[in-house]
């Protein structure tokens, strides 16, 4: 038998240290908070699973969780098909390629709080392009007072900000399809729908998986843009999970509750992402 040589562990050590500091230690701190009631650094009590029970029964969480799911669903339902359509209609060669790539990258380069500010102004009915046009068309639009308008504005803002990402990912996926597939489809007399359904979509599957997961995780954690745009209002109409969490942790300094909340939040994202992943890849293993 070969003697064991454990020197390799030294090579793995840096990764362990890095992961410990970036993920494990912070997370364990949160776990630690979540089982205590903390008044100040020296006054705290162990409370077990009480925060978890309380949080799970909290109507505030239920409401914002519901809002969050509806929001993420809308984001995916609009941005993924739209991104695919944009990618399909982008030029494949010539000067149009760099031009469209730059145009699409622009929204991605804007900082998130700036995006919120931009739309705060665009949405205003007096000086904002979007708000003024809608009101001129006879629609009574005001994102600050009408929950429906606030929702629409937050969604449009997200679509404006992030559809490019989906489009760019899909475009790179489309570019990687060898020409011979399109040639074969022409020889087989496939319709353009069949080309999309049987060549482009299957080849896009992997990038779409990444796009869906990124957009889900990001939209599920959205904070800055609605915070800047509407401050979560009117009322709690656009108060999403992360904002509820921030209010709890920093606004009320309810660290224990907030820690329990964030762990549940984390598990939900993990679970939903896993479901997406499994659903989109389960066919690969079938014969």
């Amino acid at each position, binding site marked *: 038998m070969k003697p064991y040589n454990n020197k390799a562990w030294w090579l793995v050590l840096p990764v362990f240290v890095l992961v410990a500091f970036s993920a494990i230690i912070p997370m364990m701190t949160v776990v630690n908070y979540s089982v205590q009631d903390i008044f100040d650094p020296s006054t705290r009590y162990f409370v077990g699973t009480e925060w978890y029970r309380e949080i799970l029964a909290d109507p505030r969480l239920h409401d914002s969780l519901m809002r969050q799911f509806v929001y993420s669903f809308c984001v995916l339902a609009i941005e993924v098909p739209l991104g695919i359509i944009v990618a399909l209609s982008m030029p494949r060669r010539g000067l149009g390629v760099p031009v469209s790539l730059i145009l699409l990258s622009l929204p991605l380069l804007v900082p998130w709080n700036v995006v919120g500010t931009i739309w705060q102004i665009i949405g205003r009915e007096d000086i904002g392009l979007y708000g003024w046009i809608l009101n001129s068309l006879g629609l009574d639009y005001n994102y600050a007072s009408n929950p429906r308008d606030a929702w629409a504005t937050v969604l449009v803002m997200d679509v404006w900000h992030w559809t490019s990402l989906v489009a760019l990912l899909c475009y790179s996926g489309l570019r990687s399809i060898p020409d*011979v*597939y399109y*040639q*074969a489809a*022409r*020889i*087989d*007399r*496939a*319709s353009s729908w*069949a080309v999309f359904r*049987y*060549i482009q979509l*299957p*080849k896009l599957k992997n990038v779409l998986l990444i796009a869906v997961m990124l957009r889900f995780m990001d939209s599920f954690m959205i904070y800055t843009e609605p915070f800047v745009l509407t401050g979560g209002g009117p009322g709690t109409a656009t108060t999403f999970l992360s904002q509820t969490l921030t209010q709890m942790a920093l606004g009320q300094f309810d660290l224990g509750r907030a820690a329990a909340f964030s762990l549940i939040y984390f598990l939900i994202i993990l679970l939903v992402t896993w479901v997406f992943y499994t659903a989109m890849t389960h*066919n690969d293993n*079938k*014969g």
Partner: protein
Amino acid sequence: MAEIRLEQLAHSYHGTPSKPADYALRQMDHVWEQGGAYALLGPSGCGKSTLLNIISGLLVPSEGRVLYDGKSVNDLSPQQRNIAQVFQFPVVYDTMTVFDNLAFPLRNQGLSRDRIDLRVREVAEALEIEPLLSRKAHNLTADEKQKVSMGRGLVRDDVAAILFDEPLTVIDPQLKWRLRRKLKEIHQRFNVTMVYVTHDQLEASTFADKIAVMYQGQIVQFGTPRELFENPQHTFVGYFIGSPGMNLLDIVLGSSGVELERRTLPVDESVVAQLRRGGEGRLQLGIRPEFVQLVAPEASTLHGQVDLVQDQGTFKIVDVRLDTPSAPVIKARLGEEEPVPEGRVGLAFPAAWQRFYRDDRLVEIAP
């Protein structure tokens, strides 16, 4: 099913071609007759695939016309031309089963379910992929995928022609042989025009009745394997066909007849006279290694030293280095049982197998 005619066809990937080198295909006229099994043989980059893509309509030729049964199809897309093409690397629709892959072209044509089922099973049986029919295509091995690709080409029974672009590249040699036989069988059964592109002369001659040899964007010879072997119309055909290829020697017409570096070769007077009438140009003598005779040194004017003997199993290749100033090597092919001489030998070229080329083109010699 159709006769495919190429009329003054030429193609260039340059926008404004000015010199012959700008053309991927130089002007050609050619006919593929209905029901024939043809091979298009040539080295990589000679324009074979370009020609194939022009026939199928994937490429629009920059000059000339493609005619199916006398009708120009230049303006028709591949869909409208109703042609099948199999590519070098397998193209399968990953998410479909093998059955659906094979049925795809038929469904696009709007055939009835029963017809589709019948055809797919017929083709699957011919290619021996029946057990795979219900499998998803993306789990197949490379050669299974290629069989499916070929199946999609063969499944339509009303196509003008089936074009194969080096379809057996990814297939291992054993299976290659069987698939070629299959294609041949299918060709005989369905009587459809087939054009098979390859760079492998063995593949070409086992599949095709007639072979078109391409070189630098031109079809330099079109004939049966035997014609290509016995009567190469172009030095390239001589060199490319046969293993090893034809020996080609630069010759001049001197006062005493045909001379190879000042040594007079035993060539008939009438042949020399005909060569003299042909005018200027680079002259070459071609002789296949199969016909080179190794004789005693005193029996010939041409001598050399045996340089290398390669035993190929069923025959031997003998390299003889001539004792002329530039010392060209002549290859002779000997049967496995024939004795191989050593040291200095004489060489004889039987008159019946001497071929003469002027500027690479065969000089026709009247008997």
